[in-house]
């Protein structure tokens, strides 16, 4: 089926997110605007206006009550999803690159950029769901990674840990005291980690990297070959041609999808053909590529999967969001045979 093209942004997309029901799709862009759309028909419900810089990141809580956003204007904002009203603004010294609601909707994490004398950090804020506008200014905990800066972060294992992905391709696990709990000894990726998305139950997650690969990790403890406890274990690797910007897990289906592409600069010199802008589907157990779908006219910056796997959406460097709906064949297809369907 042809995708629905959402053309409400004037500049590249940075992050897109479905709400828990999957009826709404939120999109953040370099044009300073956050949009919310009906995911089934692509109709725009509204916008969240107030940022004065690229909106790098957004996340909606599990009840679709609050939206949190982070921007290059050094501000993190809390929004009322329904009214579009900005409830609270936190101001930092550098841009906010990643935000995420904890599983119980009681906290948010915010990754701040490292720049000119300011160390990057991951801060956790407690959110008073009844208080609306009056929220704490001070973070509950502050994680300050030494070494390579964090580019992405996520809650995992029932909010027990925060996992951070770094510029140099490492992964770290932090406990709720803000202490480094587990450090992956070898670099998880060879280059910058661009995205990190959790499985529905938070026991494993997928990372994408500029090193052209996407990887699935389990959140431990697992016994490794030496009998030691390993808290981050590489489960699967998916390697393609282009540097990847985003990867997502399809709940209920044995696939993952990933998107990326050559940077715009590199593309103009080699012709569009080389961009590798296709969205790729991989079997997440067999590590085999199963499908390739045409992407946008430029690299894909962000992918999101419908929580009930009714479809997926991609946000492109070209400023468009493309919403794909799976047809019935996709739901019924068991291309490897029924006996070779993995458990979720």
């Amino acid at each position: 089926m042809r995708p629905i093209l959402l053309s409400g942004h004037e500049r590249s997309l940075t992050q897109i997110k479905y709400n828990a029901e999957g009826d709404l799709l939120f999109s953040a862009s370099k044009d300073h605007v956050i949009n919310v759309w009906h995911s089934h028909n692509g109709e725009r419900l509204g916008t969240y206006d107030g940022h004065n810089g690229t909106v790098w990141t957004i996340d909606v809580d599990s009840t679709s009550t609050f939206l949190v956003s982070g921007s290059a204007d050094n501000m993190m904002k809390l929004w009322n999803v329904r009214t579009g009203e900005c409830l609270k603004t936190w101001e930092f010294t550098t841009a906010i690159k990643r935000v995420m609601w904890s599983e119980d909707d009681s906290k948010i994490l915010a990754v701040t950029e490292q720049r000119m004398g300011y160390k990057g950090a991951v801060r956790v804020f407690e959110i008073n769901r009844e208080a609306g506008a009056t929220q704490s200014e001070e973070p509950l905990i502050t994680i300050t990674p030494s070494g390579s800066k964090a580019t992405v972060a996520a809650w995992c294992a029932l909010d027990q840990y925060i996992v951070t992905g770094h510029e140099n391709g490492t992964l770290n696990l932090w406990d709720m005291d803000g202490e480094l709990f587990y450090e992956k000894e070898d670099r998880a990726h060879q280059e910058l980690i661009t995205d990190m998305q959790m499985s529905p139950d938070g026991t494993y997650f997928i990372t994408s990297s500029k090193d052209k690969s996407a990887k699935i990790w389990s959140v431990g403890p697992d016994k490794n070959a030496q009998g030691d406890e390993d808290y981050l274990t590489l489960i699967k690797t998916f390697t393609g041609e282009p540097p990847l910007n985003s990867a997502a897990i399809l709940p209920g289906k044995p696939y993952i999808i990933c998107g990326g592409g050559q940077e715009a600069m590199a593309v103009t010199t080699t012709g569009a053909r080389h961009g590798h802008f296709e969205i790729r589907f991989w079997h997440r157990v067999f590590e085999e590529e199963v499908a390739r779908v045409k992407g946008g006219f430029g690299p894909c910056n962000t992918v999101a999967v419908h929580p009930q796997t009714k479809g997926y959406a991609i946000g492109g460097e070209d400023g468009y969001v493309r919403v794909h709906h799976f047809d019935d064949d996709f739901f019924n297809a068991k291309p490897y045979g029924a006996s070779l369907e993995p458990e979720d």
Partner: protein
Amino acid sequence: MASYDHEDIDYSDLEQRYASQYVSPLDSVVILDGAPVVGPDRADKLIGAIVKSASKEAGLTVPRSAFEMPTESDGQSKGFMFVTLNNPTEAQAFQRALHEFKFDKRHTFRVVPFADVGNYEQLEETYVEPPTEEWAPREHFRAWLADPAGRDQFVLYRGDDVQIAWNNKGGAQEIAHERSRWTESYTQWSPYGTLFATIHGPGVALWGGSSFERLNRFAHPEVKLIDFSPFERYLVTWSPRPIEASTDTRGPSPFTEEDEGNQVAVWDVMTGALLRTFPMVGEPNSELNKRIVWPMFKWSPDEKYLGRVTPGQQISIYEVPSMGLLGKKSLKVDGVVDFEWSPLSDKEREAVEDEKAGRVKADDKKKAAVPIRENTIAFWTPEVQNQPARVTLMHLPSRTTIRSKNLFNVHDCKIHWQSNGDYLCVKVDRHTKTGKTRYCNLELFRVREKDCPVQVIEIKDAVTAFAWEPKGQRFVLITTADPNLGQVAPGVLLKTSVSFYGYDSRKGDFLVQKTFDNKNSNSVYWSPKGRHVLIATLGSNSKFDIDFWDLDLDREDKATENDPGAGIRLITTVEHYGLTDIEWDPSGRYVATSASTWMSSMESGYAIWDFKGVELQKHTLDKFKQFLWRPRPPTLLTRDDQKKIRKNLREYSRQFEEQDQLEASNVSSELIALRKRLIEEWNAWRRVAKDEIERR
């Protein structure tokens, strides 16, 4: 991977061979073997005849006193003799001219330098023909032909790595042999695939056998171009650097002062011996030498002669192995531009092979029934003053003109022989009197018919490509009326038409069977077995289309009587982005398309398709340079063998189908087992992870 730098190649034996500066008197002595055994009464006559041959073949005057013929106790000669020449140079010339010389029907001389024989005191008792020793192959050169699965091989050259791989039906990689830095510039197979040539700074190396042992090296510094003779016996090399004599201390050199300044060398592949060197035809840096036309020396299809044209003046034909000028003088043809040898039919080629192998027996009537046709060349001369342009067909060595035809308003000619030598097409590019518009005449010679009739087909447009169907009676023509013709600009794609012509035996003419307009194709690749043809767009930076045609697909179910072109069908059109080369496998079942960084392809790599245009494998590879199928020699099966196989094809088919199914199911059962294991591992891990989360 073993690393093969030119410095690693051991040249010590060459050094030994050429390092000796001391001239022994024995260097002037050669041994001539293979002469008829005669009694004392006929010894004089025999020596006289050999003297005559030496004069004719080598241009040497050898006194009778130079011969010493050992005899048995009964006075009968032993079939060999010692010949003492005036100096080592003469000795070499004598050897070059008379080695392998067919003295008469039953006697072929073998000539070796006396010094090579080694311990000559025991010569009479232990005489072993020296070449046997040198030629004894360490491995079977044609072992790959005995592959039980009947697969072909190909070369992949990427970055510094050279691989020789099997073409597996399922597309799975299987490397037969690989080496890093095996060559310094490119690789090339000999015509039958027996030898693999690599090109290095100091010269050419040849490899063969199942482990690709090095067989020989040919020290020609800075060699750039090479060409094998049709039966792989000789090698011609060209270097842009004129030869310097052996005073060059940088390395061993087979060259003497006589070779100084020359750029072309002809070698014996098996012995490694230099047969002769040649200078370029024109003065250094003259117009004639600006563009190197390769092969510069064209081999006759029976490997007996090689010829070179001196544009505007003459065609020079040399005999191998003596390398003497045929008839002692070049064929003077005022204005001559180019010539081509007529190829041989299969039967003719077989007869030549039998002759070479000494299998011709007087009582074998069947073989005698196939007379070896005299070699034929076709050459053309342009208009000069009042003389019209002309195409001539000539027999060699007799120099009998069998046909010539005058041509008018000629801009250029191209000579295209059909691969059996049955037909010759001279594509004559013509211009109108004003010289503005280009059009074309095809002059089609039916060489095997009496008086060699010529049919002329006038084409209103310019013809940009012509190609005969191998061993067939059809050809493909690409024409264009595009005004952009001749303009070389990026992005300019000529509008072309593709026409299929065939010989209509009832009308006795070649007739157009089908024409397809609105194409951009510019290149034609016939399957080596005919019938299937690829018509592609190459050299563009935007279009990389390949059309797969089958010329006989619907032949069975359509009334072909009235429409000989009814079977012509475009099967499919595919694209290979960045495509620079197309090559059919020797069997005509597969075709490889490759994109080489040498041609600055935008996406280098290669793909293999079947003849139906189904992509079987594709690899995008950085720094990919060269893909070459390994050629195969003609089949060893006799005609009767082949007939029998054709008759029983159904039975073979059944076996192959069974075999293929078995293989396919083996592959898939392996794959299924692997997937099952992966699923089990995944499920086990998921259960543990879920339990873990429950406990929290």
